[in-house]
C-alpha cells in the first residue's frame, strides 16, 4: 500500500540519504569482525583511534580548522548545545557575563539551549532579524555592549535557506571580544563555508544533512578553554564530550564533509537549477504562490513556498499520499504543524506562515522528481483549498 506509489523525496533539508561513498567508507567499521574502542590500548583500539583522527583531519581541513578543534557529537543539536550552554558556563565560571544572544531564526537546538542558560540563572537575548533574516546590527551591538558569553547565528536557516552574513557578524563580535557560534548544519556543502578567514569560535555541523547517517555531528571549538563540557564521563575528546566515540558515524562524517566541501560549487549549481525550475514552474501553475525569502541571499537547496488558501498540514498529508515528501514549516517531533517562529521573525504574516511548504533537494534529486511534484500539486491544492474553506482556516 505504502510502497506502490511513485515517490519523490523532496525533504532533504530534514535528512538526506547516505551517499554511496560514505556508506562504503563506514561499512568496514560495522563489519562482523568488529571495531575497537578508540580509548583501548590494543591494536583494535588503535585502529579505531586512527579512524577518528583521520576524520578529524578531513573535517578540519575542509572547514578551515585544526584537527584538535573537532569535537564529535550525536548531531547538530548536541553541537549547538555544547557551544551555547558549554560556552555560557565557561564564561560564568571565568567571571564573565552569563548571558547569550541568539538570532530569532535559530534552530531549536540553539534557541532552546539559550533558554536553558536562562533557566540556569543566566540571560538569553533573542536578536531580531530583518526580512531577509539578517541579524539587526543595532540590536546585536546593544546586546554586546551589555556583555555576553557568546552570540549565536545560524549560517543557513533550515526553514527558508536564508544565508546569514556570518563574516559581518563575526567582525562585530570581534570588536567586543565576544565569541560567535554558528550552526552551519544547512550551510556545509551548500554555500562556501570555512572558518579560515572568519573569526568564528564555534561551528556546528550534522552528518545527516550532507550524506552521512543520522546520529553524528560535530562542534568545531576554536578555544577549548572557552567551553565547558556538558556531557560528563570518561573524559574522551579532550574532556569536552565524554562517551565512547561513534566510530562508524565519525568515519562517515569525515568523508561526507570532505566530499561536500570539495564538490560544493558543482552541487550548489545542481541544487539551484532544480530549485529555480521548481519555483518558475510553480509560479506558472499557481499564480499567487509566494516564494518565502526570495529577495534575500538564499542557499540553493531549499524552497519555502506559501500557497494562499491551503492548510499546510493537510498539504503535507495529501502530498505524501501522492508520493511526494516535503515539510510544513519545520518538522516537529509529533508531526503536527505549528505556525513557524522563523517565518514570523522574518515578517511573514501569520496566515501566510501557516500555509507554507518546504521543498528541499540533494544530490539524488532529479528534474523528474521535481516535475512529479509539479504534476500533482495543482489537484491537491484545489482539494485542500476546499477543505480549508470547510474548516474555516
Amino acid at each position, binding site marked *: *500500500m505504502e510502497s506502490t506509489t511513485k515517490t519523490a523525496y523532496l525533504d532533504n533539508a530534514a535528512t538526506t540519504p547516505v551517499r554511496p561513498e560514505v556508506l562504503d567508507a563506514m561499512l568496514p567499521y560495522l563489519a562482523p569482525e568488529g571495531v575497537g574502542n578508540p580509548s583501548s590500548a590494543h591494536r583494535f583500539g588503535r585502529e579505531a583511534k586512527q579512524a577518528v583522527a583521520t576524520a578529524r583531519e578531513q573535517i578540519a581541513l575542509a572547514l578551515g580548522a585544526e584537527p584538535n578543534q573537532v569535537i564529535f557529537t550525536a548531531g547538530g543539536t548536541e553541537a549547538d548545545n555544547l557551544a551555547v550552554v558549554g560556552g555560557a558556563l565557561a564564561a560564568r565560571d571565568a567571571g564573565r557575563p552569563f548571558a547569550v544572544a541568539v538570532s530569532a531564526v535559530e534552530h531549536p537546538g540553539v534557541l532552546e539551549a539559550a533558554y536553558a542558560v536562562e533557566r540556569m540563572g543566566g540571560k538569553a537575548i533573542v536578536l531580531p532579524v530583518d526580512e531577509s533574516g539578517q541579524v539587526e546590527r543595532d540590536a546585536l551591538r546593544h546586546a554586546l555592549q551589555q556583555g555576553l558569553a557568546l552570540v549565536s547565528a545560524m549560517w543557513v536557516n533550515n526553514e527558508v535557506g536564508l544565508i546569514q552574513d556570518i563574516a559581518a557578524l563575526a567582525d562585530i563580535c570581534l570588536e567586543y571580544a565576544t565569541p560567535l557560534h554558528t550552526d552551519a548544519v544547512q550551510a556545509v556543502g551548500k554555500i562556501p563555508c570555512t572558518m579560515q578567514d572568519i573569526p568564528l569560535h564555534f561551528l556546528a555541523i550534522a552528518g545527516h544533512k550532507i550524506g552521512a547517517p543520522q546520529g553524528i555531528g560535530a562542534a568545531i571549538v576554536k578555544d577549548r578553554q572557552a567551553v565547558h563540557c556538558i556531557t560528563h564521563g570518561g573524559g574522551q575528546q579532550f574532556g569536552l564530550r565524554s562517551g565512547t566515540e561513534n566510530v562508524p558515524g565519525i568515519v562517515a562524517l569525515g568523508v561526507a564533509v570532505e566530499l561536500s566541501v570539495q564538490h560544493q560549487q558543482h552541487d550548489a549549481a545542481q541544487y539551484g537549477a532544480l530549485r529555480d525550475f521548481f519555483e518558475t514552474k510553480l509560479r506558472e501553475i499557481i499564480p499567487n504562490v509566494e516564494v518565502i525569502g526570495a529577495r534575500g541571499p538564499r542557499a540553493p537547496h531549499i524552497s519555502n513556498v506559501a500557497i494562499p488558501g491551503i492548510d499546510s498540514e493537510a498539504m503535507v498529508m495529501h502530498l505524501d499520499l501522492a508520493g511526494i515528501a516535503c515539510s510544513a514549516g519545520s518538522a516537529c517531533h509529533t508531526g*503536527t504543524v505549528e505556525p513557524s517562529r522563523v517565518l514570523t521573525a522574518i515578517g511573514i504574516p501569520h496566515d501566510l506562515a501557516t500555509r507554507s511548504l518546504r521543498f528541499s533537494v540533494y544530490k539524488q534529486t532529479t528534474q523528474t522528481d521535481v516535475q512529479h511534484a509539479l504534476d500533482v500539486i495543482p489537484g491537491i491544492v484545489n482539494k485542500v483549498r476546499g477543505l480549508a474553506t470547510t474548516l474555516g482556516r
Partner: protein
Amino acid sequence: MPRSSQSPKPGARVLVAMSGGVDSSVAAALLVEQGFDVIGATMKLFCYTDDVPDRPCCSLDSIHDAARVAASLDIPHYVLNFEDRFGRDVIDDFVREYSQGRTPIPCVRCNSFTKFRDLTAHADALDCEYVATGHYTVSKDGNLYRGADSGKDQTYFLWGIQRDVVRRMLTPVGSLTKKETRDIARRLGLATADKKESVEICFVPDNNYVKVLEEKLGLDAPALSPGPFVDSSGNALGSHQGFARYTIGQRKGLPGGFPEPMFVTRIEPHERKVVIGPASELFNHKAELKEVNWLADTLRVGDTCHLQIRYRSRPVPARIAESAEPNRLTLELIEPARAVAPGQSGVLYDGSRLLGGGILN
C-alpha cells in the same frame, strides 16, 4: 442485535481516527484485514502539558502509540492539529456549561463537531468513502445501534452527529466485546493490546474538572464562589464553595445532619444556590431536550421510545409530548427518571437503535 457491520468493499478508502488506544488500533487492523485502503489519523486536540503524564489517550505517548500501530499495519499515519477548533467547540463549551450550573458531556460535542464533522471534512478531501473509529456502536444501513458489549456501548455519546455521516461510518469493534477486541489486539501483536482503558475526560487531568474551570474562569468566578445550600422550600442549610462543584444527584460534599440521605436536586446559578433534598425529590416525570438531532425519522407527538438520561442509567419508556420548536422536544416519562441533570444528554432509542437525542434542559 446486528452482528456484522457492513459488507467490505475491498479497496475503498477509509480514514480511521486512531487515538492510540486499543479500540481504534483494532478498528484499523480489522479494516486492513478486510481489504480497505486505510489511512490512520490521530487528532491532536489540546496542548499537552506535564499535567497529563500517563493518560492512555490523547497524550503525546498516545500519538506515538498510534503511529507504531499504523507502522505495524503498514498504513500511512498523520497527526491532525485540531487544537483551535476543539478548544472552541468542546473545551470552551464545557467551561461555559459548568459556569451556568449545568453538567456537560464534552465527548458528545467531540463526536458531533470534531470527529464526525472536522475529521470527516478531512476524509472528504482525502477521497475517503468511509470514516472509522473504535467506538462501541454498530453502523448498519444508515442506522446506529448499541454496541454488542453492553458495558462499553457508546451510542449515548453519538446522538449529535450528522445523519448523513452514519452511512459512511465503519464501526469494526462495535460488534465485539472489549475482551474480544483485546484478544484480537494480542493476536495481531498490536503495541496497544494491553493498554489500560481511558475513562476520564481527555483534557481534564486527574479527573479534576474544577481545576480546569479554575484555570479558565478564574478563582473568583461566580460558579466557583461561595453560595447557599437551600432546601426545596428555600430554607438556608449552609454554604458551598461554588455551584460548579456540584451536579444533580450528587451526594458528596453536602451538609449533614438530616434524617435521610440528601442529594443535589437543582442548581440556580443566578443566585448561586445549590438546592438539596431527599431522594424523592430527584425523580422527574418530564424531560425537555434542546439542540435536538435525529438519526432516524423524526418522532411525532404521541410516539413512544426509550429515553436514556445518563451514560450509565437504564433507559425509561417515554412519550413525545411536545415538539413545537424545531430543535426542542418535551417528553413525558412513562416511568420516572432519577436525577435528570441539565447539560447531560437525553438520548432516544428504539430498542438498540439510536434515534437521536438532545441536551437536557
